[in-house]
């Protein structure tokens, strides 16, 4: 598919424009990969080596840094982050998909108002709602639990993912849902057996975006939990840094561990993600 897309660059052979573009791409790739490389390499050094010889490869690879980081508390934060992220991703995707389906396929009054209300959430900055949310979570008795993070993440995740998924569902021909109605299907059947399978690429994208948001979220995580056992990795890294004082190389190892899960998630979902981008072209 991708091969068939005519490109101004490749059609005329390898002219100067081709090499200029290639250079720019490599430059961009380098700029984005360089800090990551530095992080990974540093995490295998001793702290002394890190400051003394910032650019070189380590003299001996300090695998022990990773073990130290893991045992120093990273493991706990990772587990909290995984729980909060997985729960919020599942809830956001399921609820947004269901809301989008209702908005696109079902007939009911007040659709426009409901859609506007949901999308309105996009313009609400999370910082503004810190205090009311804090009160609410206290009132509900879930302050300092996983729910204190999951609920706000879901609430703030739904507007964008509904926006995304709805825009995709609108393009699915309405006759499919009507054919299902004629076949005796209820809305749930149509949702589950027609819309969900056809929306897989966009659901993967929404999941990926939400996963990154939940994983990297800082302000709520800082405000709504305080026990070490429920802290997520973003906040955990701060306590971690304090605890380690000056053991920078171990801290680097901890940082690498903290990005691995989200990298893996990306690699797993990106096939779907890119599939979603090219699907329209094939049809």
């Amino acid at each position: 598919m991708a091969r068939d897309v005519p490109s101004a660059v490749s059609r005329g052979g390898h002219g100067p424009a081709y090499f200029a573009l290639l250079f720019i791409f490599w430059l961009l790739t380098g700029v984005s990969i360089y800090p990551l490389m530095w992080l990974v390499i540093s995490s295998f050094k001793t702290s002394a080596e890190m400051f003394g010889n910032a650019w070189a490869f380590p003299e001996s690879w300090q695998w022990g840094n990773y073990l130290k980081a893991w045992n120093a508390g990273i493991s706990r934060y990772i587990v909290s982050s995984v729980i909060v992220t997985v729960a919020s991703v599942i809830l956001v995707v399921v609820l947004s998909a269901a809301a989008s389906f209702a908005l696109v396929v079902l007939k009911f009054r007040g659709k426009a108002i409901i859609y506007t209300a949901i999308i309105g959430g996009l313009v609400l900055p999370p910082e503004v709602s810190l205090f009311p949310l804090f009160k609410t979570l206290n009132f509900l008795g879930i302050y300092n639990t996983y729910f204190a993070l999951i609920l706000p993440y879901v609430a703030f995740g739904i507007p964008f993912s509904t926006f995304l998924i709805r825009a995709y569902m609108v393009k699915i021909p309405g006759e499919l849902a009507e054919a299902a109605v004629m076949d005796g299907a209820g809305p749930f059947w149509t949702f589950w057996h027609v819309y969900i399978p056809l929306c897989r690429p966009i659901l993967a994208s929404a999941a990926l975006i939400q996963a990154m948001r939940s994983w990297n979220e800082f302000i709520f995580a800082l405000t709504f939990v305080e026990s070490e056992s429920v802290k997520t990795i973003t906040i955990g890294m701060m306590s971690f840094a304090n605890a380690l004082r000056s053991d920078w190389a171990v801290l680097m190892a901890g940082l690498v561990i903290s990005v691995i899960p989200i990298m893996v998630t990306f690699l797993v979902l990106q096939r779907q993600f890119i599939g979603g981008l090219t699907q329209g072209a094939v049809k």
Partner: protein
Amino acid sequence: MSKLEMVSVSKTFGPVKAIEDISFSVEEREFVVLVGPSGCGKSTLLRLIAGLEDISAGDLLINGTRFNAVPPAQRGLAMVFQSYALYPHMTVAENMSVGLRIARVDKAVIASKVSEVAAILQLETLLDRLPRQLSGGQRQRVAIGRAIIRDPEIFLFDEPLSNLDAALRLQMRLEIAKLHKKLDATIIYVTHDQVEAMTLADKIVVLNEGRIEQIGTPLGLYTAPRNIFVASFLGSPKMNLLPGRVTGSDSGTARIDLDIGASTPIDVKAERLSDGDRVTVGIRPESIAVGAEGSDAFLPGVVSVVEQLGGQTIVYVDIEGGSPITVIMEGLADITTGTAVKLGLPGSALHVFDDGGEAVNRIG
């Protein structure tokens, strides 16, 4: 009792009146075609029958029972959509069996029904393919298969052939006609293509702007259109329409002077006309004779375009002071552009319409 009956049905979308006071009936095993120009409400009418839209006023009766409020799936109808509406992620077999699977029919029964229907439609070798791996005609057959498998009381087709190329359209048209016979099916079929309507229908319902213009058999509508709309909608090339004036009327006959001077006034059978009335005279291209012999009147003109179709020749003749007239001649006619001709108008083949476009005579 009719299989299906629409009684004074109307449908409004907010301020838009899509369907206005429509009544017609469909008999058991009848092939009824709803035909009309784009936007006249054909799809809406079909969707009202299917239950995909609610009826604003009037009644839908199936086998004599009021069905207005019955959910679509329980009406015993199957619909074939214009875009096929096949589920892209399901195989042909899965697409066809959706209704049965939802109804929780036994797996073995489903399998045997699928192969039975696949055999009728020559889809046996395609059962495991996805829709995108099929040609347009094959997809259309799957869509029809999905309807047949449910063994419906009535089939609803919404412009099923409009996405196909000309050759395939002709072939599928024949297949649908055969299927109608083979299944003894009752069919309501929507199209804007008057040829499809003429060839497939037992009964045609001509729609225009949400209203019924005329109901009848294909031949009945062709030979006795009730108004100018029906007269010019059916038939290809279109009926020629010539403005004129009544110069003398007698009980049951009228003498008409065409605005573009015919050789003599024409006498036609016509009711309700009086001297001085404006009228429109219609004549089908195949009823005009080239050469004036034996005609009641003739129009002189000059041939401007000749289209040789093999079986027939279509000739366009410029008339002084009027729009060109279309003539169909049988076979490969020996006629060339620029020839001066006299077009014979047999009085018995003339349709006469009054000022409001209503027919005032009946031919045949």
